[in-house]
């Protein structure tokens, strides 16, 4: 519930909130901090810290590479939580854990939620955990004021969207198109209609990700959602020219 107030207060000053993403330990934790400083300056409202996993089957090529290199360089779950604690202390934006269910499962549901809370996280996004399997984890998370973020997707039936809405907490992550992360989404009338439907069904604000990479996308989303989610596009900028390119990228979004 605490997230509702936060989102409401952030929305007083702008039409569209923004969530960004970094893969913990890729290319390094130091580089992550530099990325986050620029993101904070650009005024982002949420950041997903992805805990690297060896089998990132819902991610596209750039995040797959990032996960793989982070895992190979020895990044541990413990280090990710330490980093999260540092980040949530230093910055104003809220922090979520993003990752795959095996990371949560191996820790145990309660230990995971407790560690997330202790590190100052406000929620988690675990795309390979379907609602049918999420019961005990979500229940415990909610009891600890940690928001389990659920996903709505364009292949869901209306009935399924209603079921997802019932489980929603914090905000709903709306997947703009089929496919994996990265790549372009054509923000057309069909997408707009789907986003309007999700916003209508969802009892909490909606954030939209997958293929969000340009100012036009954000302008479009401002009419159909509460938050834009930028993942791959920011990492791509960093890969092209580190701090300078990332600043330019946020500049191109009109945020710096």
């Amino acid at each position, binding site marked *: 519930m605490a997230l509702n107030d936060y989102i409401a207060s952030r929305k007083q000053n702008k039409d569209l909130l923004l969530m960004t993403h970094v893969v913990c330990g890729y290319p390094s934790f130091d580089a992550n901090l530099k990325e986050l400083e620029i993101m904070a300056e650009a005024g982002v409202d949420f950041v997903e810290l992805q805990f*690297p*996993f*060896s*089998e*990132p*089957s*819902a991610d*596209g*090529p750039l995040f*797959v*590479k990032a996960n*793989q290199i982070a*895992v190979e360089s020895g990044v*541990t*779950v413990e280090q990710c939580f330490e980093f999260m604690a540092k980040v949530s202390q230093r910055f104003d934006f809220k922090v979520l854990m993003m990752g*795959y*269910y*095996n*990371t949560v*499962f*191996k820790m145990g549901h309660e230990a995971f939620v407790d560690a997330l809370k202790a590190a100052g996280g406000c929620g988690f996004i675990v*795309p*390979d*955990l*379907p*609602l*049918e*399997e999420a019961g005990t984890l979500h229940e415990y998370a909610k009891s600890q004021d940690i928001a389990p973020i*659920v*996903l*709505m*997707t*364009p*292949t*869901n*039936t209306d009935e*399924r969207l209603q079921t*997802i809405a019932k489980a929603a907490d914090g905000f709903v992550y709306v*997947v703009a198109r*089929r*496919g*994996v992360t990265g790549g372009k989404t054509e923000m057309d009338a069909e997408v707009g209609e789907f986003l309007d439907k999700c916003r209508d069904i969802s009892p909490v604000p909606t954030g939209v990700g997958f293929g969000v990479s340009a100012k036009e996308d954000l302008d479009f989303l401002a009419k159909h959602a509460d938050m834009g989610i930028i993942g791959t596009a920011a990492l791509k900028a960093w890969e092209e020219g580190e701090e300078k390119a990332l600043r330019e990228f946020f500049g191109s979004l009109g945020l710096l």
Partner: protein
Amino acid sequence: MDLFDFEPGREGYYGEYGGCFLPEILTTTIEELKAAFQDIKHDPSFWQEFEQLMQSYSGRPTPVSHLANLSAKLGGAQIYVKREDLNHTGSHKINNVMGQGLLCKRLGKKRVIAETGAGQHGFATATMAARFGFDCKIYMGAVDVARQRPNVFWMENLGAEVVAVQDGQQTLKDAINECLRDWVTNMHDTHYVLGTAAGPHPFPEMVSYFQSIIGREARGQIQKVAGKLPDRVFACVGGGSNAMGLFQGFLDDQQVELIGCEAGGLGPGEGNHASRLAYKDASVGVAQGFKTYFLQNKDGNMLHTKSVAAGLDYIGVNPALVHLWERERVRFEAVTDAEVTEALKLCMKTEGLIPALESSHAFARAIEEAPKMSKDEVILINQSGRGDKDIFTVADALDDDHWKEFIKVKAEHYGAE
């Protein structure tokens, strides 16, 4: 015992294992697949159609043969073999693939994708796609592409596109991840032909169902040729499809001991093998869409695996087999690479049989146990695939000097062209 009579709310679970852990975007596709599979499962004409197809296209039923020479040499139990290697494309993989091909037709989909490790499943899928007229894309780890060129050659010539996956360890598990990525993008016209009895529900059930043709045939055949049910049944276990296929024929026969033979590679120790249950290096986790024992570290990241047999070189294992192992219905043993090559040599010399390196794991364990059994006891081994087709890998495993010389000459010849 009906493994697939799930308790309410526990659909797709075998004890604590199995389930369906996929991104939300695939929910509708999986529901559609489950419904189509239930339809065919309860339609007697489907199994008939499937059996006829397997008879005319793949030469089923495959025989059960007595290995009199090997039995006499070992001096113990009578050894019999279920000859799945005699199938078209050279392994049991075709059973599952043709079944899923018929299912794909019923789903009205025109494109199939598949992962492959050694290339057997990709080869079988490419064959099926050619026969049914589907577009076909095969994902194969770049490391596997490099070491299995003959299978890639056949897949391409059968009309499939083979994609070399550059992520991760560039082997089977990475090919599965890449299939999942293709599927979340193209599920509207694409069926994912998963090759083993692993992954998210309903795949373990569905693949086991098509492979059960092995056990259904074998149970009657062995009684006919040996005059009794087998005392022990051996099958190799990678993902678990050939073992599930054969074991299902004997699950209700409590006197029949079932033995799963895993890839022991270089022996116990993290990264040395692909043995999830016989060695103690694996633990329960959730990855690639299902819950099972995985070879992973304490953070849940997967370990490297190692085996002379690419088809057994996998991090996870069929969830029903884990359940049966916990209930002590299936015993698991690991067989090292060294034991495998010795068993293969013995089979070739005494019986003129060339089992695939995968199947040789089952032979090796049976050869180990047979001498300690009495002469009126009966062993049944699943020869899940043929080894002669994988001449490059088998020649490597046997370290054959004449073969190496031949390849050198051939390479010079190509180089001079």
